[in-house]
């Protein structure tokens, strides 16, 4: 019993928070501000509790297991949730369904936690669905907006199809091996045609969820149509959690097929970087622009995953941490501008520095970190990813990735140029930054600078990681 409470501590806290909010919604008439304060406080408590009294171990016959790396991954996701919640407060204040938003958000987070700690394909499937069905409802949260409902429709159809593919793959894996447990699967899987076919289906399912290139078509529309808070959640937390599971499934379950999936990931990562970059160049809506830039970033992460060493796991977790800070900082500014003025075009940001110097600097630091300009953390993140990919000695892949970093400089700096250099007759007026988004931006900018400059964080992640 004590074991159960200690090992599942993070999941239990989230469950309690969900029920607290549900009861408050049913039983009381709280104002939006009070609910927002309470929810942010509870999320902060959840993040703090994640750092204390952690143990490694397993429950329910290996269905659920946890270790220091998994705890760290969950803490990264909790941190991201807190930042998203702080940023969306100015949008939520005007919304009439605030508790429901938090219930959906935390159900999502709960699904991700179960998905990360799973040791069994059944648990994995249930966790994955719990982390994608409420997300579709969240994409529809601007109930009266035409774009929002279109985005939700596209998201639920593509995510249901992706889980269909994934399930068909799982059923074939079950047919070939007769077990669903990760540890037993690893010793039963051979490189025969049936496991390879099953793996292709599973890979397609995963690729849909993290929007790798042949399966990325839903991304831009969903990002543009969904409310900005949901978009930032989708692009950072949702993708990050699936990436964590993807790494552990590849490195434990499909260990015997390492040669096969290396070639598949090699092709997919090159395609993803290239197409993400080329499409990002021609976007005019800033949310669509960030969507394609996030596709390109996923390509870089895949380069890191191909390394399949201890360095590879460490670099992926480290990069996701940096990506949480830098992408959420960018989305924070976009969310504030969009919720006050409703302007979302790249050309609207011309002359932004004249009216909003602080927001301009936050956005610029975030874009520098996304592009990988040296003093920011993004540089170190990409450096470790490429180093891990280079460990395999495949220099074609590394050359393509490095050249694409140069292309990405072009489109990130295009926005920086618009902010600082271009003249504009009607710039965005001066915006007052409310307290919560200001705190979120401060955390993000501090994170971008500190994670890169202190070697301790990377060393800590590396010491927890595992290889193939």
């Amino acid at each position: 019993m004590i074991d159960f409470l200690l090992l599942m501590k993070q999941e239990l806290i989230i469950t309690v928070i969900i029920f607290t909010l549900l009861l408050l919604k049913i039983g009381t008439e709280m104002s939006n501000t009070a609910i927002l304060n309470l929810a942010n406080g509870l999320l902060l408590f959840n993040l703090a509790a994640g750092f204390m009294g952690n143990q490694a171990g397993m429950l329910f016959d290996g269905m659920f297991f946890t270790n220091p790396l998994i705890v760290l991954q969950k803490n990264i996701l909790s941190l991201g949730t807190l930042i998203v919640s702080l940023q969306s407060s100015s949008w939520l204040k005007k919304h009439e369904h605030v508790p429901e938003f938090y219930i959906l958000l935390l159900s999502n987070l709960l699904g991700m936690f179960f998905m990360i700690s799973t040791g069994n394909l059944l648990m994995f499937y249930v966790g994955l669905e719990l982390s994608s069905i409420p997300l579709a409802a969240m994409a529809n949260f601007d109930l009266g907006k035409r774009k929002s409902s279109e985005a939700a429709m596209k998201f639920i159809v593509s995510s249901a199809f992706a889980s269909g593919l994934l399930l068909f793959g799982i059923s074939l894996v079950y047919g070939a091996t007769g077990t669903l447990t990760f540890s037993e699967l690893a010793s039963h899987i051979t490189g025969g045609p049936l496991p390879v076919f099953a793996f292709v289906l599973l890979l397609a399912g995963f690729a849909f969820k993290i929007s790798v290139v042949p399966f990325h078509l839903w991304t831009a529309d969903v990002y543009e149509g969904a409310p900005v808070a949901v978009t930032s959640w989708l692009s950072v937390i949702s993708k990050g959690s699936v990436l964590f599971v993807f790494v552990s499934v590849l490195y434990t379950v499909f260990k015997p097929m390492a040669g096969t999936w290396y070639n598949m990931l090699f092709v997919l990562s090159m395609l993803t970087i290239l197409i993400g970059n080329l499409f990002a160049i021609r976007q005019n809506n800033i949310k669509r622009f960030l969507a394609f830039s996030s596709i390109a970033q996923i390509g870089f992460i895949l380069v890191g995953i191909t390394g399949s060493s201890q360095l590879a796991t460490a670099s992926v977790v480290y990069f996701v941490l940096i990506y949480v800070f830098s992408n959420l900082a960018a989305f924070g500014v976009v969310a504030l501008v969009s919720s006050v003025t409703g302007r979302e075009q790249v050309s609207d940001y011309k002359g932004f520095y004249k009216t909003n110097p602080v927001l301009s600097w936050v956005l610029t630091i975030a874009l520098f970190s996304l592009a990988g300009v040296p003093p920011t953390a993004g540089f170190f993140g990409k450096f470790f990813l490429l180093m891990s990919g280079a460990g395999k000695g495949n220099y074609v892949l590394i050359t393509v990735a490095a050249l694409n970093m140069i292309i990405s400089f072009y489109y990130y700096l295009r926005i920086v140029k618009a902010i600082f250099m271009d003249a504009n007759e009607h710039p965005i007026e001066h915006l007052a930054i409310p307290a919560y988004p200001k705190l979120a931006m401060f955390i993000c900018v501090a994170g971008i600078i500190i994670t890169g400059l202190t070697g301790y964080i990377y060393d800590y992640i590396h010491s927890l990681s595992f290889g193939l």
Partner: protein
Amino acid sequence: MSIPLTHILFVSTALFFIGTYGLFTRRNLITMLMSIELILNSVNINFVAFNKYLYPDKLNGVFFSLFIITVAAAEAAVAIAIIINLYRNHRSIDVEDVKEMKN
């Protein structure tokens, strides 16, 4: 005389690809949702058949199909709620009519 496993796998695979074909060709959202159900049910047949024919001593596969049925019901509920809201905003559930975002 019992039916060999390959026959059942043939049915389930055919069902899977009929569902995929339907999802990509149909333009009505309710029909697309039905196609997704076909895909999920083909997976159910797979699980139950593998369980019965190859690994009859454990119940892994049957339990998995029970979970799939439950989750598919939840998914359909959310999808239909979204489609109703889409109909309120767009006055149509045909995907060809829902084209707010074009780059």
